[in-house]
């Protein structure tokens, strides 16, 4: 197992370096060059010149990259001229709220998708299977923002059951103080994920149903429910670990949209605002952090999987 994990860690280090190189390249592609992009459109030419000299943007590219990595290692992500705050403090303020949203939606998705997928596998090619398959096709063919707005139309505008807006507040505690406002954003993000996960669960449960251990359990006289819960469920849970790791970038993209639909004060809303005012320090700082977090996340998923499933280590 150790060589497998060591190889995965080595790969992850190169991928993290790759992410920083990509962001560094984007920084240099920005209109007017990096200094102009980092200082904002209202900086004077003299300020830009001084910034270039002070921060070494007139030095060779590899030295600039070294400086950039040095800043990253110190946790210095730059300064947002739009918010007049360091990117670090913006991140510290808004990232936890997005983690809450995404985390809750994963909990809901897994809790719903696993039983749905197993139900479909057991009732394979029956009306319930066709109905759920149809529903999941519609689920992942919907633009996220349209889904969110339709939920608002039904549950907030027509039925008045739930607020149309996400909870407002600067801290996770304040958000949790208004749980009703969380329901629609979490539901929007979950529906898309459930659509993907349940399809996956259905396939992997169908694969598992024909395995020898299921047949053995059945022929030993175990009741169908016991077979499902004690054997099938456990073995079908494993791929979900990988699936969460794989789906993270897509879910985070969905979170950006969901947050802007519900005006949910997380990282996604901040990024969207940053994009509309061309606040590049925020955009690039968050890209690096989210990219690295994704790499670490999928590394953890792979390591967990290798710990849980001995077959992977020797593959």
């Amino acid at each position: 197992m150790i060589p497998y994990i060591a190889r995965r860690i080595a790969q992850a280090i190169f991928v993290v370096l790759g992410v920083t190189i990509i962001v560094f390249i984007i920084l240099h592609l920005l209109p007017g060059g990096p200094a102009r992009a980092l200082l904002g459109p209202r900086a004077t030419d003299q300020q830009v010149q001084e910034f270039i000299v002070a921060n070494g943007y007139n030095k060779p590219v590899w030295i600039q990259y070294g400086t950039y990595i040095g800043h990253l290692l110190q946790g210095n992500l730059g300064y947002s001229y739009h918010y007049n705050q360091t990117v670090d403090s913006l991140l510290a303020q808004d990232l936890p709220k997005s983690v809450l949203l995404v985390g809750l939606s994963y909990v809901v998705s897994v809790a719903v998708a696993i039983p749905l997928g197993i139900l479909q596998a057991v009732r394979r090619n029956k009306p319930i299977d066709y109905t759920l398959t149809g529903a999941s096709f519609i689920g992942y063919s919907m633009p996220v923002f349209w889904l969110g707005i339709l939920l608002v139309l039904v549950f907030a505008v027509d039925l008045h059951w739930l607020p149309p807006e996400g909870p407002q507040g600067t801290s996770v505690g304040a958000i949790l103080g208004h749980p009703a406002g969380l329901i629609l954003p979490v539901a929007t993000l979950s529906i898309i994920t459930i659509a993907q996960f349940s399809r996956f669960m259905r396939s992997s449960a169908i694969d598992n149903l024909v395995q020898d251990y299921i047949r053995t359990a059945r022929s030993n006289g175990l009741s169908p429910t016991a077979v499902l819960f004690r054997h099938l469920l456990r073995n079908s849970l494993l791929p979900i670990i990988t699936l969460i790791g794989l789906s993270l970038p897509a879910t985070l993209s969905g979170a950006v949209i969901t947050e802007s639909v519900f005006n949910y004060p997380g990282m996604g809303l901040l990024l969207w605002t940053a994009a509309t005012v061309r606040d590049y320090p925020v955009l690039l700082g968050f890209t690096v952090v989210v990219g690295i977090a994704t790499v670490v996340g999928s590394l953890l998923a792979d390591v967990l999987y290798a710990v849980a499933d001995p077959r992977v280590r020797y593959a």
Partner: protein
Amino acid sequence: MALVREPDAGRPVTGTQVPAEAGAGSMWRLIWQVFLQNRLAVVGLGIIAFMILFCFVGPLIYHTNQVQIDIMQVTQPPSMRHPLGTDNVGYDVLGRLMLGGQSSLEVGFAAAILASVWGTAWGAVAGYVGGWLDAVMMRVVDSILAIPYLLVVLILATIFTPTVPVLIFVIAMVSWLVTARLVRGETLSLKARDYVLAAKAAGVRDRWIIVRHVVPNVIGTIVVAATFSVADAILLLAALSYLGLGPPPPAANWGGMLSNGLNYIYDGYWWLIYPAGIAIVLTVIAFNFIGDALRDALEVRLQQR
């Protein structure tokens, strides 16, 4: 937005029976026959054919002015003159649906083709050459995949003015990665095959081996990935338009129409919210049906070997 696809086991679709008369030379006919047995795939093809006719032939029959705004005719409900009403600047919604569909479909197809060509080249070279080059090329793919694609697209769309060609390029930039991975994987196994080794021994140049022996054998995988890419590209274009980074008016696309209509959800203008949304969902579902069916058909071919 579905970048994660389920493993290739048991579709709920019709039982795929392999026609008995299929010979060795009729690979494509066999795939086509298995494909046609899949009812969902036929429905998908029907929807795409309808959408193409609707968007590209429709405007030749149903003439509307989609350039000049008409402030005397804003947000009119559906009537004989405007079957789907008018939007907030007086454009006829049915006509705009055709025009918007043109750019949604064009962006979807073009981005998928560009991404497939680039992803195939990248994956085939990485897999065929192997060693350090392979490791570096695949870490590049991993790195781009690690960044949420909406962020990459968001940043690129702020740098370049979002015209249709720019959006095609930007969307292709994030959708070639899956193709590259799949093609690399298959190339790794193909390059150990006898016919590739024979070609090598005969002194055929590597470039020619990739073009003549590797790519034709992974074309099925490429086509399946490309079909899903079209669906993803249409959704991504819609998301970008919602975020205000789509092609600016008077250009239209379904996502832009939809996000524009969403400003009026409290006014009850349902004809601004549903037609464009349904058009997107139908088209994306159709491509997903076709992609699934193609993958199944291809598996049957693999089982035949």
